[in-house]
């Protein structure tokens, strides 16, 4: 598990997390300020003020001192992502239960540059992707590999559906670019196929709660000077902007992207702590056990040590004798432990990333550590054995 944590801390998330801060901006669905109900059905219509709000916010935040760029992105939790199904225009429609799907994220065009998600082919979304222009979409490499393995995805058209509602978007989207893979569903998981769409090119009406994708956004800000010591200043600047735009607008605390990543592997850290505690208890019990057994062994064989010393054994010989027994016991224990571990590690295989349950290096290192601990545990009894007075020992029959 420690190997897993180390691996996860080193894994490339697919973008540059340094100097990026994040704040959650949630517009209220109720109250009629941003969303209107469509009469005669479970449909909602975002008001134009929503996108104007984002545009103004990005403009003002980008102008803050020290800010290099700012963008909005509907999900950068690095733990999960909404999966929407889609169809590819010009291809036979798959059965309803076997529709292809992909992670769906709304972004401002500036989100790519702010997060430094690398462009692999084509182009990013840009300011020309307006509501009235042809709708576009940027996919990632995982999407291209899975759904266009032998053809060029650029220029292909997708029709995205608002899962779980059986409602397609108003218009198909043309693939204009391919970006690098970002591990949106977790650092431990391979990158999922993703589609990135512009927050400006959205349907006029949304089924049910699907409008929340548009209302719940994250403001991502890249600073030129680094975030250390500046997060409070940045948060204060953004809060003031929001307060000026809408005094009732809530905003979350500022988090750095590194904190988001650390939080995303919180489960693994928790498991490491729990397992660490149990492992510590197990090692302690082993130490106490070996110490007890060796102490008993030494006290039981005091007479023998006396004879051996009388016959020429030096303290180092006695130390070696006890040490060998301790080593033997420890090796037996380690062998049993390895056999059990090989059988049981498959139970925690699901928690391991970047390391196989049967990783030989881990087995060797852990075994060596346990042997060292075992030898330490028998050192005190062994030292006691070297102090045996042969005259006293030989007096006992």
């Amino acid at each position: 598990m420690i190997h897993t944590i180390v691996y996860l801390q080193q894994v490339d998330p697919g973008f540059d997390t340094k100097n990026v801060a994040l704040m959650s901006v949630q517009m209220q669905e109720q109250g009629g300020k941003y969303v209107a109900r469509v009469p005669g059905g479970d449909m909602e219509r975002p008001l134009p003020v929503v996108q104007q709000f984002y545009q103004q916010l990005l403009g003002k935040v980008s102008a803050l001192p020290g800010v290099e760029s700012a963008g909005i992105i509907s999900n950068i939790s690095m733990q999960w992502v909404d999966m929407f199904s889609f169809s590819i225009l010009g291809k036979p429609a798959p059965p309803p239960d076997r529709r292809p799907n992909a992670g769906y994220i709304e972004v401002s065009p500036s989100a790519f540059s702010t997060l430094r998600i690398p462009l692999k082919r084509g182009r990013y979304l840009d300011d020309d992707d307006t509501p009235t222009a042809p709708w576009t979409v940027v996919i990632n490499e995982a999407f291209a590999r899975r759904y266009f393995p032998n053809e060029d995805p650029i220029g292909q058209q997708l029709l995205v559906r608002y899962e779980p509602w059986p409602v397609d978007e108003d218009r198909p989207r043309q693939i204009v670019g391919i970006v690098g893979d970002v591990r949106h569903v977790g650092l431990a998981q391979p990158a999922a196929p993703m589609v990135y769409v512009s927050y400006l090119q959205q349907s006029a009406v949304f089924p049910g709660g699907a409008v929340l994708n548009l209302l719940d956004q994250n403001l991502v800000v890249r600073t030129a000077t680094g975030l250390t010591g500046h997060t409070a200043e940045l948060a204060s600047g953004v809060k003031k902007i929001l307060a000026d735009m809408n005094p009732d607008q809530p905003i979350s605390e500022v988090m750095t992207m590194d904190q988001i990543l650390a939080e995303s592997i919180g489960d693994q850290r928790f498991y490491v702590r729990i397992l660490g505690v149990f492992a510590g208890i197990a090692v302690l019990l082993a130490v106490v056990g070996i110490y007890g057994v060796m102490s008993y062994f030494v006290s039981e064989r005091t007479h023998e040590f006396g004879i051996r010393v009388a016959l020429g054994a030096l303290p180092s010989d006695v130390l070696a004798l006890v040490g060998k027994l301790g080593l033997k016991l420890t090796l037996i224990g380690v062998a049993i432990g390895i056999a059990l571990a090989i059988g049981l590690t498959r139970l925690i295989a699901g928690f391991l990333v970047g390391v196989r349950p049967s990783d030989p290096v881990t087995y060797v290192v852990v075994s060596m550590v346990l042997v060292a601990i075992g030898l330490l545990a028998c050192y005190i009894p062994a030292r006691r054995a070297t102090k045996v007075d042969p005259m006293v020992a030989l007096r006992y029959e």
Partner: protein
Amino acid sequence: MIRLKNLERSYKTPAGQTWVLRRINLEIREGEFITIMGPSGAGKSSLLNVLALLDDSWEGEYWFREQAVHDMKRKQRGELAKRNVGMVFQSYHLLDDLTVQENIDLPLSYKDIPRRERQGLVADTLDRFQIVGKKDLYPSQLSGGQQQLVGIARAVIHKPGLLLADEPTGNLHSGQAKEIMELFRGLNQQGTTIVQVTHSEVNASFGSRTIQLRDGWLVGDTANSGLTQPVEASAS
């Protein structure tokens, strides 16, 4: 071979200091067969432990082949004993979980001797003591006399110059005792210096010299008829 000069040994007890050896002056020459006698508590075994270099807590001078043992550190004394001293015990003190040949090999295992050479020495010793047929038996499968035979074989396998025996026949019947004592005499005739502790006059008769201890004092020595007995010992 050995010269003790004003050697003393005492224990601290809650009641005060208890003396077990008092001003012992003794010379043991190469090839002697000495018997130490005296009543229980006279200090016989204590003297033997000092001679065996098992005991470090004495005062005075101890010279072993002109080497000043009293100036040596414990490890040096251990090395000296390992090379020169063999011990035979009243209760044999064989290790129960080792076979006869493993027991005999024990002193050699603490010397820097190649395994092949050790195996040869063990085979020779088994042959010499006529216990080849018992080499794979464990001590519990042997009679008392046979166990003591193994104990002696173990004590002499590394050809020590000095063989010390503490009541070597104390647990044996008279027939076995006689065989053991004959064996000692043979070893002595081959050049081994022997010091035995015994209560038996018969056993003492196998030796060439007898010394008497009483209350820690050396009060008699057949090689030194002019030995002056201390007042304390005479009074007791």
